[in-house]
């Protein structure tokens, strides 16, 4: 059943290559990227129970880690990915380490401060030679090999799908295994986890680093697809969008991250269509509505609709 579902999903994901073109395919590429970014956030918040409001910062680090070598040193896109992963992991570890010593809200506020400070840091004179300051950096997207016979938009969609797909598979495996269970144990009952011999601080910081790497990969992709990075693309609004996407898609759900990515990309446009003057009001209202009515997000709704209710006598149906 599982491999079949995966294959069907893959076919569904490949269809737009021929069905959509131009701007719509570009948008869908960005939705794939956002889904990857939301997945990164979901690892640390959904599976490890630590609230981050600053994942836009790791997105930015990933984007610059790809843009700087590509634009200034003429590296190929693929060569920048491992470098970007290393840098994002290091930054994630560095930010997580102090904040994880304390409970959820401290981490939320520290990461929030990080998200607010990032554009300022990127614009600063000391790093301007590398980041291009306010002007940002231009780069060229990787070109499709001859034999694929794809136009640039199609190729970028394929690249994004490939990178995101690999990250999703790796994450799913990680979460299913021993380490994933440890992450969830730390989330659900830290005292018991510690009593079982788990090193809380070490699991938390490592989870944070992994999560930063995944979101950083999304940033790398985004830099290549948009062919441009600038500090003002990475304001705290980006971090908040990722958070909202995660909540709406489904906290602690891999499938939910996909819905989250679609939400992050398409709902702001819808909100703007409903009310041109205050899209944020609608965005915020959707967030609060979901928290009140559907705290498991879209993925929770899907799960509820697709699983048959089994009533065990004397127990609530789950």
């Amino acid at each position: 059943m599982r491999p079949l579902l995966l294959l069907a999903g893959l076919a569904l994901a490949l269809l737009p290559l021929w069905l959509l073109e131009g701007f719509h395919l570009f948008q869908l590429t960005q939705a794939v990227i956002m889904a990857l970014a939301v997945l990164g956030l979901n690892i640390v918040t959904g599976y490890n129970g630590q609230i981050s409001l600053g994942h836009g910062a790791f997105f930015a680090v990933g984007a610059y880690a790809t843009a700087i070598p590509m634009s200034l040193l003429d590296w190929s896109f693929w060569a920048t990915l491992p470098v970007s992963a290393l840098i994002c992991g290091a930054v994630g570890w560095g930010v997580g380490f102090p904040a994880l010593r304390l409970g959820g809200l401290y981490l939320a506020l520290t990461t929030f401060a990080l998200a607010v400070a990032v554009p300022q840091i990127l614009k600063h004179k000391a790093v301007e030679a590398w980041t291009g300051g306010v002007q940002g950096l231009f780069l060229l997207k990787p070109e499709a090999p001859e034999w694929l016979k794809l136009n640039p938009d199609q190729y970028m969609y394929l690249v994004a799908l490939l990178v995101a797909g690999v990250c999703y598979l790796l994450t799913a495996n990680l979460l299913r295994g021993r380490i994933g269970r440890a992450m969830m144990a730390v989330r659900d009952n830290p005292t018991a986890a510690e009593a079982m011999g788990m090193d809380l601080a070490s699991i938390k910081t490592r989870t944070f680093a992994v999560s930063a790497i995944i979101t950083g990969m999304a940033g790398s992709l985004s830099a290549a697809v948009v062919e441009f990075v600038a500090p003002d693309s990475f304001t705290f609004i980006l971090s908040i969008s990722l958070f909202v996407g995660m909540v709406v898609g489904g906290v602690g759900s891999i499938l939910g991250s996909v819905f989250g990515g679609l939400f992050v990309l398409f709902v702001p446009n819808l909100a703007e269509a409903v009310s041109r003057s205050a899209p944020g009001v609608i965005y915020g209202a959707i967030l609060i509505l979901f928290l009140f009515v559907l705290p498991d997000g879209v993925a929770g709704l899907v799960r509820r609709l697709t699983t048959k209710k089994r009533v065990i006598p004397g127990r609530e149906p789950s």
Partner: protein
Amino acid sequence: MDGFAHQLIAGIATGGIYASVALALVMIYQATHHVNFAQGEMATLSTFIALTMIQAGLPYWVAFFATLVVSFVIGALVERILMRPVQNAPVLTHVGVFIGMLLIISNATGWIFGHTTKAFPTPFQSDGLLFGGLVSAHELGSTAVTLAVLILVYLFFAHTSLGLAMRAAAYNPRSARLVGIRVGWMLALGWGLAAAIGSVAGMMVAPAVFLDPNMMLGILLYAFAGALLGGIDNPSGAVIGGFMVGVLENLAGAYVVGTELKLTVALVIIIGVLVVRPSGLFGRVVFSRV
């Protein structure tokens, strides 16, 4: 040397603003163990309400106190309508609601009152600077107002039975309920008070930084840094921390990093405190046993 003294005093004046927002944060933290991310936006909304009243022709102080009342009601309503239904939900839900409120309030403020930067009047008019050019009348006046608020809050919590009831409700809700304190209303009261204190901070800072829908974002971070520095569970520590952060920020901005990295200073202070002394300078060290 004069330059230094001026920076120091300007730092104390802005520190007063941070101190009052930090106090509002700590009050909500003490009552509910939450940090309200939308505190700054609520204060900005209050300041816009005050500006509307002043422009409608009300005298400054009438508008000031009317804004306090309106802010109090808004804060209490937010607790009743938005926080009450999710009070037993996980922290993530609370943070989500705060973020939702932040989005709604900041957008609605921009929508209703416009996104342009506005000047906000100060009640402390004077020609030039006082005390040999060291301090402006507004800096002096706003510091005095902040200190007055802090003293009033202290008196309220330490010397009235309502303040005692609120502390009891926060410290041990179950026992408080058993002796007849209406814990739910105490929470609403705490939110209302915090909103009112935040509105004072907004009205005092607006003449200095000008009023726009995002005015309080940076201030909230500094206030949080102040609250952490002083100890998040200690109101007077938060106040001292707020003043210290104000001075640090001004001196660092003038002599070390320049104005472009001012927000990064807040981040550095937050991380620094968490690494070196997570309980803050005056906070209680909490041990948890496994």
